[in-house]
């Protein structure tokens, strides 16, 4: 049996009596790319938020690498090695691309807090080289000195990916990395994610676009009405009648 | 975007090099030639500069403006212009109407903002930049004490303007500072007999007191003066300065059994608390079979305008009032009224008098040196400046003179005619031992600055 990195145990979450998540059990294995799919309102984002500590489950627990994440603060979860890329790109809009990447690099190296009052950031040669490399890998060599607020949405998303990658996370959570993209950009993103996958990072990806899911995922969990209705390899999922039912009329599988 | 990217071109570099060079040479230019000067800001040219430091912004701006008018008038008279005002009535006078010691009087002005820091900054500018040899003005005790301390350090003379706290010439007295204005103790001593006469011995007083040094000092003086005459103090409640709405302090008065309310407030606090107390119907009340009364220990006509009809019939004390009929007061009112179209306030009066007294002291001693001025002023007895015979007591640099008890006019004939003098309490009744208030003058500072 492979190593289990993230274990979601019997998680329940409801908002004002409405069950957003019930009986969620999910195991993410090391080095796999695990996609969570489901129709709108199935509870995908809620699940992700529970995983990174943004939301507290009503019951159940989330265990990452033997550590219970439930009740932990976002920065503590990140320091354990969980990085997240948001659905709408969340970057530091006032900073340049390179600084955007330097910040998580520092967080990785120095921990959640370090009083380095007199250490000039420009003297962090090693980190800078690394940051530049990550940006170059993502095709942003020309944008390093650009301020993030002036970037296109696609570039912001790549920047955010770079911010996560530089931390070499044990677990990477991607929330709809191709939302709102044109087909051409989506394909570019798929290439990018495949590259990352080749680098060997455990990834959980939430996605609407089945093309993306089937090009990347090793395993897929299907969420509907706050429950996992199916789990398995892409091929298994393709043929699952429950999944077809859940998606009926909504999207072609 | 930050300055770090501003372009550093060669010109800028050269400039900074130049500046650096200049900086090294700088201090030399600014250390004054100490040997040529016997004391701070010794006048060397044909003129002498006085500094008038008054509130020009904030709640006391109108009072400050009136003080400034008086200062300008005094300078005019000292320089021999105008009708001479009280120079003509002042005796014994050494003033010649040709400036001070033959030097033309010039002045600089500043804004105290009624804040100690701003007042000291302004006074420092006058001393350090404009070469003022005497600072005068101000309309609160905090500011007066702060500036007095500064003048002591700098070695110039301070002639206090409107400051009523005992501390100015008590705990915080300084050798270089002088006060013509009266204080809370004198107010209490002057009001005591009048209140006894008007309202009887069997009274129960309720004090509302502004919660800072002057208020406490005023309350203490009033309690001494009234309690020694048989009055009882029901309660003494401290109110925050600038409270605005005093209703929460006034309603408890209604059922406290008190029959007199003493408002130890000044300025805007006085205007507001008095207006509101009257609105609460206190003056229409009967308590213990007597008419309920309100007393305002320190009255300023200028500020009292703000209380409108509320001041009618209310007793208080004042340093001076323009309705006085003595020759000196009349000469001053005539001169001031002709110049500005309105009678002077008591703040204006004390500032005018202080300027004249300073000039006279210089003439008497034949010098601008603080040592000489202090020597001339200490124990100086004079008359003809509107308060009758007056003495600058040597022990605490406080003027001793008669104190006016006034009452709000029931039927004012003009908007200036708010107060009428009901009693002139003689000096002997308000005098006290200099040791009573503590503090010490210390040595006169007449060092070069």
């Amino acid at each position, binding site marked *: 049996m492979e190593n289990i990195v993230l274990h979601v145990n019997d998680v329940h979450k409801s908002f004002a009596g409405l069950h957003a998540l019930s009986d969620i059990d999910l195991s993410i294995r090391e080095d796999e790319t695990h996609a969570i799919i489901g129709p709108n309102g199935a509870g995908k984002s809620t699940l992700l938020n529970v995983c990174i500590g943004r939301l507290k489950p009503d019951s159940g627990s989330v265990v990452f690498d033997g550590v219970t994440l439930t009740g932990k603060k976002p*920065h503590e979860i*990140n320091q354990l090695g969980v990085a997240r890329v948001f659905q709408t790109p969340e970057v*530091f809009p006032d900073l340049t691309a390179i600084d955007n990447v330097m910040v998580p690099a520092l967080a990785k190296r120095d921990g959640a807090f370090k009083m380095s009052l007199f250490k000039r950031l420009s003297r962090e040669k090693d980190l800078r080289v690394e940051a530049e490399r990550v940006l170059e890998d993502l095709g942003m060599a020309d944008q390093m000195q650009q301020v993030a607020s002036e970037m296109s949405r696609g570039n912001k998303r790549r920047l955010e990916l770079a911010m996560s990658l530089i931390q070499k996370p044990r677990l990477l959570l991607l929330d709809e990395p191709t939302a709102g993209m044109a087909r051409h950009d989506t394909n570019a993103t798929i290439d990018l994610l495949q590259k990352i996958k080749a680098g060997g990072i455990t990834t959980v990806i939430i996605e609407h676009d089945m093309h993306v899911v089937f090009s990347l995922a090793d395993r897929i969990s299907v969420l509907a009405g706050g429950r996992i209705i199916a789990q398995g390899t892409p091929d298994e999922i393709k043929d699952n009648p429950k999944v077809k039912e859940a998606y009926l009329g909504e999207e072609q599988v | 975007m*930050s300055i770090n990217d*501003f372009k550093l071109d060669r010109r800028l570099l050269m400039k900074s090099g130049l500046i650096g060079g200049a900086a090294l040479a700088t201090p030399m230019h600014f250390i004054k030639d100490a040997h040529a000067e016997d004391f701070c800001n010794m006048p060397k040219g044909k003129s002498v500069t006085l500094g008038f430091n008054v509130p020009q912004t904030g709640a006391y701006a109108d009072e400050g403006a009136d003080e400034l008018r008086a200062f300008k008038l005094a300078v005019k008279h000292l320089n021999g212009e105008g009708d001479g005002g009280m120079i003509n009535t002042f005796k014994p006078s050494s003033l010649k109407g040709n400036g001070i010691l033959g030097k033309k009087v010039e002045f600089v002005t500043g804004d105290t903002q009624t804040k100690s820091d701003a007042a000291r900054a302004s006074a420092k500018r006058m001393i350090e*930049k404009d070469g003022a040899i005497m600072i005068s003005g101000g309309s609160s005790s905090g500011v007066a004490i702060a500036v007095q301390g500064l003048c002591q350090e700098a070695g110039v003379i301070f002639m206090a303007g409107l400051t009523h706290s005992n*501390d100015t010439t008590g705990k915080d007295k300084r050798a270089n500072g002088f006060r013509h204005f009266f204080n809370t103790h004198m107010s209490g001593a002057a009001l005591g007999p009048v209140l006894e006469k008007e309202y009887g011995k069997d009274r129960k007083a309720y004090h509302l007191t502004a919660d800072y040094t002057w208020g406490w000092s005023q309350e203490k003086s009033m309690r001494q003066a009234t309690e020694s005459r048989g009055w009882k103090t029901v309660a003494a409640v401290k109110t925050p300065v600038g409270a605005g709405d005093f209703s929460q302090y006034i309603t408890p008065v209604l059922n406290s059994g008190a029959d007199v309310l003493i408002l130890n407030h000044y300025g805007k606090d006085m205007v507001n608390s008095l207006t509101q107390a009257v609105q609460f119907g206190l003056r229409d009340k009967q308590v213990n079979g007597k008419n309920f009364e309100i007393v305002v220990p320190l009255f300023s006509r200028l500020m009292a305008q703000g209380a409108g009809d509320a001041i009618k019939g209310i007793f208080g004390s004042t340093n001076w009032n323009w309705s006085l009929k003595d020759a000196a007061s009349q000469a001053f009112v005539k001169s001031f009224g002709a110049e500005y179209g309105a009678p002077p306030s008591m703040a204006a009066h004390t500032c005018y008098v202080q300027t004249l007294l300073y000039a006279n002291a210089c003439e008497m001693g034949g010098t601008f040196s603080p040592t000489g001025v202090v020597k001339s002023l200490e124990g100086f007895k004079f008359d003809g400046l509107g308060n009758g015979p007056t003495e600058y007591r040597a022990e605490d640099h406080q003027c001793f003179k008669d104190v006016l008890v006034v009452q709000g006019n029931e039927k004012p004939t003009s908007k200036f005619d708010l107060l009428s003098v009901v009693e002139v309490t003689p000096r002997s009744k308000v005098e006290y031992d200099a040791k009573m208030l503590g503090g010490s003058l210390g040595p006169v500072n007449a060092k070069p600055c």
Partner: protein
Amino acid sequence: MNQGSLFKDLMLFLVFAGVVLAAPVLLAPLGANYPDLLQKFAIFGIFAIGFNILFGLTGYLSFGHAAFLGVGSYASVWVFKLLSMNVIPAVIFSVIVSGLFAFLIGFVSLRRSGIYFSILTLAFAQMSYNLAYSVLTPITNGETGLQIRQLAPSDRAADYVLNLRDEDLRILDQAFGVVEHGIPITNLFGIKMSGYPGFYFCAVLLILAFGLSILIARSNFGMMLKAIKSNQNRLSYTGINTRPYLIAAFVISGMFAGLSGSLLAVTDPLAGAERMQWTASGEVVLMTILGGAGTLVGPVLGATLIKFFENIFSAINDNVLQGVYSFLPDGLREAAVAVSGLFVGSGWHLTLGLLFMIIVIFLPGGLMQGFELITGRFKRKAKAETPSQQSKQPAE
């Protein structure tokens, strides 16, 4: 472009130091070259630099920073009264005390952000002010302000505790056998801290404070603060615990405020409660925004401008104006004096208010943007970026 090169920073620092040290010469044409005002420029410059570390870098707008200034002043005067007139112990003690005070207030206030944080700091400062003015008079000497006094007579030493407000001890000075005549003046190992020596003392500290602010702005720590301002939420998902960074920034800027409060007492040993009033807190906010929040030099420029108006414009009276317009014929002169009189003397507030409006309308980045306009950088930059973004950046 947030990272200046080391060389540029060094040059900036040196130019700044040169300008500050040469201020007595440079400001002479403006009539602002007298010690007290120069001291005020330096002291409020430090105050604004410190405030900018919090507000400019993290975006957290404190409306109670004057409290730390006030605490610094009181702490210094107490050291003068109890220990020594030498300024070194006073300055050190003040910075420590205000740092502790800032830690307490910051620890609580930083539980909230945005306007809620601003109001919490305002509330703490106003409570400090109100209590210092009245109930705490035994420590602060209330409205009059805490002052240096003469030494208590030695035979009274037994009951000095009762009268410390009015009689001083100066234990260290006494131990070293310093003889006092009347009320002593603050000194730095014998150099009197009034007048120009006082200014140069403040100037050196201003230069050091400025250098420190460059270091902080360029440091890893500074980058975290900028990231907080930019997107605090994202930063915590990046693995950073933002709270200690914020508290550290708050305490550092509180210590700068304490230092400037201490210097106010050093150059003029009187500490009054009004220093802690909200208007004083508001003043440093205005200084920083006026100069350009988030820039290095802007806050100092803003502080200088406001203090200049307060001290120089307020002192211009009709007599002075008459002199200025003496070249005009009589009638015209009177008219010119009357019109100008509205804006100077007792009308200096009007000028200040108009200035605030004009600067913020035309120079959204504060004075520093004006400066950049003059140096021509703006135009070149504008080609690369859209003007709106350029102008928006500095003040955010």
